[in-house]
Each structure stands twice: as C-alpha cells, then as structure tokens.
C-alpha cells in the first residue's frame, strides 16, 4: 500500500483488556488502511472490537487496554505512529480534534450538561484554529449552520438538555468537523436516533465529506448504511477482520461464511414472501481464553473439522482488493464463491 495515498494505515493492531476474569483479547491483529477521500465501512456485531479500534486511532482508549501494533497516520508533519506518541502529550492532542475527529454513538451523553453547546464546540476552535474569541465564535456558528442547526446564534448559547437527540448529533458533528479534519471516525453515529433522523444525518455526513474532502471511517452493524455510505468494507468478527473489499464485491459475491450470513440476514425489498430471513446461529463468544482456530468455528456452516478448529486462517486475496481469511475459501481459491443454500 502506498503510504502517500492512504491517510491512515493500521498494522497488526492488538488490544488486550485486563479484566477480573482474565485478559480479554478484544482486537487480535487488525490491519487496514483508508485512502484520501475514501470511506471505509467497518462492519460487525456489537462486541467485536470496532469501537476499540476506532478509539485506538485517537489513542483515547482506557488505560486498562494495552495496545500493540502500529497506527501510521499521515499528519500535517509527516507520517507518525500514533501508538508511539505519549497519550497525554501535546503532539497527539494536536492531532485529536484537528486532524482526526470522532463522532460517538450516543449524542445525549457526549456533551457535558454543565456548559453550553457553543462553549463546547468553541473549545475545539480555540484549541486548534484561533485564540480570538469573537472569530472562533463565528467559525463555530458557521459550522453549526452548515450541519443544519436552524437559529444557530441562539442555539449556540443553549445547554445540551435543550436539544433533541437529532439536533445534538448535528451539534456533535459540528464539533467534530469545525477544525476541518482529514479523517472523521463515525462510530455508529445513528444508532441512538429515530429512523427518519438517521437518514438525514447520513446524508449530512456524506455531503460534508464531499465538501471538506475528508476520509471517513464509518463504523456500523447495519449493512444497509454501509451500502449507502462506503467505498470499501471491512467485516470484523471477534477482534479480527475476516473479509475486506470494495462495497459492490462484498455485496455481490461475499466469500467469508460470516459475511454471507450477515448479508443473508438483511431483508431485501422484492424478495419472495415465503423466503425466511437468514440468521446466524449462536452468539459471539466471549473473547476470554479463546480456543485455537478460527473464531467463527462454532457458528460456521462451512467449517472443516480438523482444520478450522486447529489453525487460524490466513488472509487470502480472492479478487482485486478483496481479501478473505477463511480456510474453506482458501481451499477453493479460484473456484466460484460458495453459497449457503
């Protein structure tokens, strides 16, 4: 991968969490990259390590998490490895909010209830753009208008509890984008919102991405959203990326049994009425003391006993930019992708 092209390159990221019950291996060797202006969708069930991966890029994970690997970021001052920067130092703080920003899941708890929305957006501008109070206020209000907050001058001085959920998410987006970052991480930005609002917010992110020419890492468990938002998709399962490829590829010919299951479980308009919606058996296992072999083994319909439960699968390139980690696929490389029927 050409580093000049990609804005961020994550290599072999591992995150372990110390818990009372033992060490939880939440992220196990994740590798991906995001190109300039590109939107990468990170898809997976809850608990698969998506959020931890995102927060690792900003180095804002809890100190209980021990992180290894490298996260190379193409910053204003050249390529830096974010994991090597002191997590409380000024270098990383200069990246956070200014070059990489993040939108979180629940906008209602993302603002401190004690300060006005304006104060909290403004904080970002004052830190990264200008110390001038009047100017930074103008910039903040400008951004609030851009994300579609009506009556922004008045809203600027209001408190979070005076905002609705959708408005708060807009404010959160304004806060994330006010410094014109190179990379936006959107961690399930619409899960906590009403369906109608969801669509508006997604459109907004898409528009702003085009306008500001950002790269976006879009995290979700909703495949419909991915199809609408992303250029490429990385499917994550139990702390690993099991399949990655261009969005059309993944939708039209998914290779990994888990991806196939995910796509099978989405209701498609126009499908025959009697067709049952597909569901993946079982639940995501707890990543405590994981057994050897493929993490999906227990739930997989194509598992090969004696192979899949013994050795972890290696990533195999099955098409242009399309990589899968699965023994079953690896054995059939070059053949047609298998179907679940």
């Amino acid at each position, binding site marked *: 991968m050409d580093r000049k092209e990609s804005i961020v390159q994550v290599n072999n990221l591992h995150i372990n969490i110390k818990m*009372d*019950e033992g060490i939880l291996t939440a992220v196990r060797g994740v590798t991906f990259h995001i190109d300039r202006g590109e939107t990468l969708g990170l898809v997976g069930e809850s608990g698969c390590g998506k959020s931890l991966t995102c927060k690792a890029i900003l180095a804002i994970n809890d100190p209980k998490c021990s992180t290894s690997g490298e996260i190379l970021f193409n910053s204003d001052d050249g390529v830096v490895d974010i994991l090597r920067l002191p997590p409380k130092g000024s270098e990383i703080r200069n990246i956070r909010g200014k070059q990489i920003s993040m939108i979180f899941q629940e906008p209602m708890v993302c603002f401190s209830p004690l300060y006005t929305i304006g104060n909290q957006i403004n904080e970002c501008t004052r830190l990264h753009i200008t110390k001038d109070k009047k100017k930074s206020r103008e910039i903040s209000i400008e951004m609030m208008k851009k994300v579609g907050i009506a009556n922004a001058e008045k809203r600027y001085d209001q408190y979070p509890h005076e905002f609705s959920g959708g408005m708060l998410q807009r404010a959160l987006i304004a806060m994330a984008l006010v410094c014109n970052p190179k990379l936006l991480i959107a961690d399930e930005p619409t899960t906590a919102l009403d369906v109608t609002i969801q669509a508006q917010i997604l459109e907004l992110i898409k528009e702003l991405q085009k306008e500001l020419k950002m790269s976006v890492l879009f995290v979700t468990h909703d495949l419909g959203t991915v199809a609408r938002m992303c250029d490429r998709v990385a499917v994550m399962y139990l702390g690993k990326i099991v399949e990655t490829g261009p969005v059309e590829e993944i939708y039209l010919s998914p290779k990994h049994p888990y991806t196939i299951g995910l796509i099978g479980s989405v209701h498609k308009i126009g499908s025959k009425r009697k067709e049952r919606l597909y569901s993946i058996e079982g639940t995501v*296992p*707890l990543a405590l*003391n994981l*057994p050897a072999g493929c993490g999906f083994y*227990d739930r997989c319909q194509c598992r090969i006993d004696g192979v899949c*439960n013994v050795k972890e699968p290696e990533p195999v390139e099955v098409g242009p930019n399309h990589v899968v980690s699965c023994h079953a696929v690896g054995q059939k490389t070059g053949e047609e992708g298998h179907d679940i029927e």
Partner: protein
Amino acid sequence: MVLQNVMDRNKRKEEEYYLASQWTLMRRKFKKHKLAMASLWVLGFLYFVALFGNFIAPYNLVAYNSKIVNAPPTKIHMFHEGKYIGPFVYGIKMERDPVSKRKMYIENKDEIYKIKWFTHGSEYKLFGLIKTDIHLFGVEQGGVVLLMGADSMGRDLFSRMILGSQVSLTVPFAGAIISFVLGIIIGGIAGYFGGAIDSVISRIIEVLSALPTIPLWMALSASIPPDIPVVRVYLYITIIVSFISWTGLARIVRGKFISMRKEDYIMAARIAGVSTWKIIIKHMVPGFMSYLIVSLTLGIPGMIIGETSMSFLGLGIRSPATSWGVLLQEAQEITSIAMHPWKLIPLFAVIITVLAFNFIGDGLRDAADPYK
C-alpha cells in the same frame, strides 16, 4: 473428544457468565472485595462471642468485688518461681502509694489461683433457655481473673464488655429491621398513592431529616420514662436509633415507586391483568431490594455510634443492663483515662464493629451494581 469437552466447558462457563442471576453476580462481586470479606469474618466472630456471651464471660453483670475497685488487668502467668505449673494468676493485694497515698494493686505472690476450663460459676440461661453454670474459664475459689481490668465498682470489664456486646450488636440490627419496615410502608404509601398523602409524608420526612440527629435523639431519649423495664428501654432505643435510616429508606422507596409506575414492564404487567399487590411484591420491590439493603447496611454504623452516644450520655441503655456506651461512661474524665487506661478498651470494640459494617456496606454497594 477432549477438544469437544473443553469447548463444552467453555460454552457452559460462558452461559453461566451471561445467565447468572443478579444475586449470583452480586455474591461473586462481593467476594472479590477483600476488606468486606474479612469484615464479614470479624463480625461473624463478634456475633458468635455475643451469642455465647454468658458462657464466655467468666462473671455476670452484677458480680462486684469492692476489693478490686479500678484494678488493672491481671497478668496470666505460666511459671511460679521458675517452675511450670500451667496458666494461673496471683492474688491481688491493695496498697497505698507511699507518696501520693493513691490506691494501687500489686500481685500477691503467695496466693496462686489456677485458671480452669469449663468451670462452674454463676448460674445463667444459655440463649435464654438452657439453665447452666458452666463458664468457658475461671479461676479457683478466692482469686479473680480480670482480662481487661475492673471498673469503679469492682466489676470485671471483660465480662461486661462481652455481655454489653449483646446489646450493642443487636440494637443496630433491630433498628435496621424497624427502619426497613417503616421505610417500605411509609415510602410505599407516599409513592403509591401520591397526591396529598405523598406531599404530607414527604414534608414530614424532610423536616425529620433536617433536624440534627443527635439533638433529636437526645430529645426522644429524654422521653423514655425513668422507671420502665430494661427490655422496654431497649425497644425504645432501637426505635429512636432507627430514625437515622428509615427516613432515607422511605425517600428511596417513594422515588422508586414513582419512577417504576411509569416503567414499561410494570405497565405490561398491569395490562396483563396482574393484581396491584402482586405487581408491588413481585415486580417492584425486587427491583430496588439490593438498593435498600445497601443503604440499610450503610446506616448501621450510624446506629451503633448513636446507641453508644446515647448510653454514654446516660440517655440510653441503663443499668442493670449494659452496652459499650454505658461502659465508656467511665472514660468520660481525663483523669480516669490517665489512671485507668484500660477503660478505653470498649472504644476499640466500637471502632472495629463500625469499620467492619462500613467495609461490608462498601462491598455491598460495589456488588449491588454487578454490571458496572
């Protein structure tokens, strides 16, 4: 095969983890709180001693001996003139300090009293039922053993402390039970009926909790008639002490009732035709039970200190009954402590008990939120 077994076990473990009931999770989390677990053992020991108090104490509450007024703790010896003769105490001899003319006690090396196990002493009823006169230990006729010295009336402080623990350790429990009942009933009435009843009850609770506790207790204790039996004094004190908790509990119960009425699952139960009482008992109370238990436990230290303070001021437990607070009355004067420092020993019993309850309360509070 083996692999299958391992995987099955893992799966079972996982299922246990996800399916464990709230109480199991609480127990598990509580066990991890080492201080709380240690405190549980300490309290277990203290309550055990209190339960068998009459048996463990060598003397009873009323036994006194004017020859040993304010005598210091007796030393337990093993060797007499270099010869091993097993645990024994010397006799006590009173002398006057040649300069200050103060009383002082010295050991009379001519008299030897052996310590005997399971010896006969004063008669008592174990657990209030079994009549017996066997005590855990004692000394031969004519001698006295004072593990913690004697008080100003020549009574054994060790025995009195153990027998006093029967009062000091049970008052908070009885108080907790009273608080619990009062809190649930009064808070429940306010929360369930709402309206005017609620505002009257809430106001009364607000006023009662605005009044400073100790002055309020003093006023209430002063109203205990002087000439009533010990058991009733005990009952009154318990009720007064329960004032520290029940208002708080009632407030919690009221709040929970109000917020739960709006909860979806209560609505669902109501629509399904479940009776009001069943909703309250089966669906609402378990929802805040852990919460109540935690705040009750955290209220107990206050009750212990409350009883001790009341009795210390002479407004609580009165003789012939005794409690740690009553014993500490003798430590009121600085001169008394300077000359008879052993009279402060009951203080350590109070501190240890209060600490233990505090730690257990902390452990329970952490455990009550098992998903955190």
